[in-house]
């Protein structure tokens, strides 16, 4: 599937996937419904499902390219339709048993969504003191606590939940659970009002309070106490993919700035005649090419040099998120007033600028928690982490080496 062909000309006025439609959805703080429908029709989720399970995921550079194309048009679709389910999926392919994997694959191939519910506002990176806990009972587990700032929490068909399962200190106190939302008794999960954000405005950031919510024993992903390890292994992949994705929004921003510079007349010539503008555009393009090259190597290294990923992934991540944001700042100085308007021909620029902002959040630290899996899309700093390296095998399943 050629995503660009599917999304069609962004400037075509009647394109339901065009810039006008994308901006209008952003203003309404909604996902682009036509976009989601189109992606459903073309089974985009198959990109996240290993070929062994009926999907198209056999090489990480392929899913990175698909996601990049989506992010180039609309980062809200990129995250809210794409990356969120991809991250959840990576945790499941990493640790799920055969039945869990098959169910998750089916759900995704049927255009379902799986949310990754890791974050708690009060604890952030402080996973060891996270409040969300699972208590073992005779026939399963009871989940209690809050999850917040979770993409698609309310509308997802399934959740990957991160919960404390032991009060013992150390990294084995947490586990992951995979549950279908239809199976959760309504009275034990209270969804709180959606959270809103300055960018990614269409993405539904949910929060919910769980009170003794029963889940069956087989909801556990992997073994008890493996929650951190699974998250970090999945994170190996998702973190390597994000720099490649971030080229998408920068690509569009650069096109917008170039279009503006060629079109706008000033001082009796085109804005593109001004040496400052020429140099700024050229530098942003050089930045884009550098990130493209660097991230391509990082993504391919997942397959070819997995034992070196502990260096490549954080290096790519650290460098590229800063370069992307700096390039956006430089391009803003070319667009001037047009970078500040939410309307008009270049209104898309400020949206992309807001959407890409989280690239620097959530500094990941030595004892970084599972939020780091989310920091995969948000993290700036190089992380040291202790988990084993993993490699995606030909069938897309991530195996410890």
């Amino acid at each position, binding site marked *: 599937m050629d995503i660009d062909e599917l999304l069609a000309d962004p400037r075509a006025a009647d394109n339901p996937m065009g810039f006008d439609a994308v901006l209008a959805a952003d203003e309404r703080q909604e996902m682009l419904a036509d976009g989601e429908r189109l992606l459903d029709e073309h089974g985009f989720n198959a990109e996240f499902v290993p070929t062994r399970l009926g999907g198209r995921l056999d090489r990480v550079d392929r899913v990175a390219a698909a996601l990049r194309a989506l992010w180039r048009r609309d980062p809200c679709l990129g995250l809210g339709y794409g990356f969120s389910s991809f991250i959840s999926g990576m945790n499941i392919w990493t640790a799920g048993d055969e039945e869990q994997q098959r169910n998750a694959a089916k759900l995704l191939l049927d255009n379902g969504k799986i949310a990754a519910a890791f974050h708690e506002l009060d604890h952030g990176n*402080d996973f060891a003191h996270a409040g969300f806990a699972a208590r073992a009972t005779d026939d399963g587990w009871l989940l209690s606590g809050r999850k917040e*700032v979770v993409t698609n929490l309310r509308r997802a068909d399934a959740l990957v939940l991160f919960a404390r399962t032991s009060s013992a200190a150390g990294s084995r106190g947490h586990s992951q659970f995979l549950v279908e939302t239809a199976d959760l008794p309504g009275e034990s999960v209270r969804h709180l009002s959606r959270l809103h954000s*300055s960018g990614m405005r269409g993405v539904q950031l949910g929060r919910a309070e769980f009170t003794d919510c029963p889940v069956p024993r087989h909801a556990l992903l992997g073994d008890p106490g493996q929650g951190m390890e699974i998250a970090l292994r999945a994170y190996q992949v998702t973190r390597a993919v994000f720099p490649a994705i971030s080229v998408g929004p920068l690509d569009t921003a650069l096109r917008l700035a170039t279009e503006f510079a060629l079109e706008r007349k000033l001082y009796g010539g085109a804005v593109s005649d001004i040496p400052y503008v020429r140099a700024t555009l050229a530098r942003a393009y050089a930045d884009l090419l550098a990130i493209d090259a660097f991230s391509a190597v990082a993504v391919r290294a997942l397959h070819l040099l997995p034992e070196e990923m502990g260096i490549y992934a954080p290096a790519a991540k650290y460098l590229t998120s800063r370069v992307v944001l700096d390039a956006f700042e430089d391009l803003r100085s070319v667009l001037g*007033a047009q970078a500040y308007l939410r309307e008009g021909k270049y209104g898309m620029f400020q949206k992309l600028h807001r959407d890409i902002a989280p690239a620097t*959040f959530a*500094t990941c630290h030595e004892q970084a928690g599972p939020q780091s899996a989310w920091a995969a899309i948000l993290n700036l700093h190089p992380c040291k982490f202790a988990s084993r390296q993993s490699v995606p095998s030909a069938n897309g399943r991530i195996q410890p080496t």
Partner: protein
Amino acid sequence: MLSGPLLDNALGDAARIAELDATAAFPAEQCAALDAAGLPAYYVPPEWGGKLDDHEVLLRLWRDVARRDLSTIVAHGKTYLGTACVWLAGSEDQASAVAKAVLGGVPAAWALSEPGHGADLLNGSLTATESADGWRLTGAKWPINNATRADLLTVLARTGTAGSARGQSLFLVDKSTLAPGTWQHRRKAATHGIRGVDISGIAFDGARADLLGAQGTGVETVLRALQLTRTMCGGLSLGAGEHALRLTGRFVSTRVIQRKPLIDRAQPRSVLARCAGLLAAAEAAALVGARSIHGLTGEMSVASAIVKSVVPALTDLVIADLTELLGARSYLTDVYEYGAFQKLARDHQIVSVFDGSTPVNRSALAQQFPRLARAYAAETVDGSGLAEAVDIGVRPSELDRGELVLASRNGCSVVQSLPGVVAALSEPELTAMARSLLAITAKVVGLMAEVRPAARPAMAAYELAAAYELCYVGAACLHLWTAENDVWLRVALHAVLTRLTAVLRMPAPEPVDHDPLAELVADAAMTGGAITPFGAGDSRGH
């Protein structure tokens, strides 16, 4: 005298400010409260009954409002920008009529930009024609702050040859006197930040207007007025930076990660201190710039361009670093002080665009390189003027507006006095940093001397301008340094040197101890104490 605390109370609560932003509603109650508190008097010079006798005071007042809500002061403060040309070029009758209106709370606008022309002031297409009964305007201005709310507008219009320096004139428009059908508003634009502010436009079709100043002097008057208004824009950035630092300082002090508050960890501490240092540096430059309006009036073509570029740029950096530190709370609109951080970050991005964007100011500085290089080599310093410019908090001499000239004859005394300031220092660490600043400045000025003057300077000129701005900031820090503010200005100078060496691809300076400043800032954020060396406490406390 009007004070920060009074303004703090006038603005009302953060929840309301967030709500206005979310619904893109104009901050009407807030502006009315500022009127009631008497802020408009500070936009009018004393000779016409106002209190604009000290631009340092105005800078501080703007900062005090901006640290609560940047949108409100961008809206309210536009009246100051909109009338600045009147005090420079208006007749006695015009000035007293405008003064009376402003003192009575009438908002004004400054209409320079046109849909097809932004920074290019010489090529505007709105035209003024003279007929038997006076001047008539035809054409449109957009995007203009206050275009719809304002009763008074100063408008730049073509009266001669397009593209020529004397082809434009300024006009004063009083909407209440216009014949119906000769003008109409253009609807409010949807903006990325300052969402509630009246950014709209106005189109004229034979509307009556009064010539302001002599025909053909429009651009010159605008460029002289911009020397004042661009400098005052520094107050907007200082307020936004202070707001960001207080919000993040409180978060870092109270956020416990692995049983330890973030402030007790090395990395967050150091980021907080570096940001406080950069903000203190920006404050030093803005204060010296504002006081230079009185002390070094003839040098404002340089100082205003520097302050307008570097103060927003440093503040943008501070906000970017603090965004990272604050994490999700920098992004969410409904948690943590009603999402105040993301709002101030969006609001602040306008400061580097309007009233002359950063590239425009850097090219204005580059045009003055030859003179700056010569004056640096000659160590030209206006000693008494400089003394007044750095004497923070002391009432300055009266501004002689006639001394505002298009190109400074003396260069820039703040930078050119650097050798003397450095020679007078004794404390080793500070002296070492000051010496590197001096060496770097000499290098930068040497490169500036090699830039050939051009209508469209090469990219290198913009980079040198950016470096020279930082030299100015460093010099301002040294001029203002005392044992009492050492905790800030030592880190400030270090942060400036770090940036300068990065820009020039030179080795970074030796590290300085960030801990004392981190402690001070965390404490000030919690208790409401002053968070910059020349800042005011926050009356709300915390």
